[in-house]
């Protein structure tokens, strides 16, 4: 079996007020010198009844394009890992 871990983030050109707020919070805690940027996204994990990696990749791409990510405002990437 394969598990897909899908990361969805707002595109760089889209402002991320949530990320900015968290960045400010960390900065006020004393991390202002070490944080360059902070973005918030979503993690979706899907256990697939599929063993073939190519097939799984094709399916996950399809799911992301159709529903999981909105291409106007979001980017996605994913990795597949073997699970028992």
């Amino acid at each position, binding site marked *: 079996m394969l598990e897909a871990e899908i990361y969805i983030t707002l595109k760089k050109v889209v*402002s991320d*007020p949530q990320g900015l707020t968290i960045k400010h919070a960390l900065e006020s805690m004393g991390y202002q010198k070490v944080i360059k940027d902070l973005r918030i996204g979503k993690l979706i994990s899907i256990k697939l009844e599929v063993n073939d990696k190519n097939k799984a990749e094709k399916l996950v791409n399809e799911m992301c394009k159709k529903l999981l990510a909105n291409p*106007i*405002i979001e980017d996605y990437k994913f990795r597949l890992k073997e699970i028992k």
Partner: protein
Amino acid sequence: MMIKFGVVVFPGSNCDQDCFYVIKDVLNQPVEYIWHKETKISGFDCIVLPGGFSYGDYLRTGAVARFSPVMNAVKEFAEKGGLVIGICNGFQILLEAGLLPGAMLRNKNLRFICENVCLRVEKNNTSFTNLYAKKQVLKIPIAHNEGNYYLDKNSLEELKRNQQVVFRYCSASGEINEKYNPNGAIDNIAGIINKQGNVLGMMPHPERSAEKALGSEDGLFIFKSIVKFTQKR
């Protein structure tokens, strides 16, 4: 001639009854609810996608509702020139369904905003706004968490070139300025129409400002415009 409206009900819609009430009791036109599982819609002149939190706003607002069976029928209805108006969550669903361009982001201030806003009518030669004067300022409430309308620069230029912007957030005197932008929407955009002119999406709630007792009846004229346009058709 009576104009028949259909109000789509998704799981989580919560402005469906307000729309139904305004159409039936204030506008005095026939109206029916359409459950989201319906695969066919017929006999309607105008379909309303009401506000609310369809599917709990899970994933993204409107993202799941666009796959409701009824949406295929709504698409077909729109392709044939039928009038479709999406209000608030209904607008978000139209965006996700690709019936209108762009996407919604969370409000810039990260807060749910529920207040009266001023809107300037940017386009009054539409099926939905023909009873307003151009640049007329309307008082209509908003109530949303994701009303920060976004689309990329090129698409925005195209939208403006095609005169698809119908409403913009403004001051009481009609001035357009970032100061009067409640949610961060690009170019103060509050409502847009498709190129063909039969699908309108707007974040403000005209059904909540359709009677004097509610402080404003500015929103009623959207419904009245639809009736006027359809009767002339």
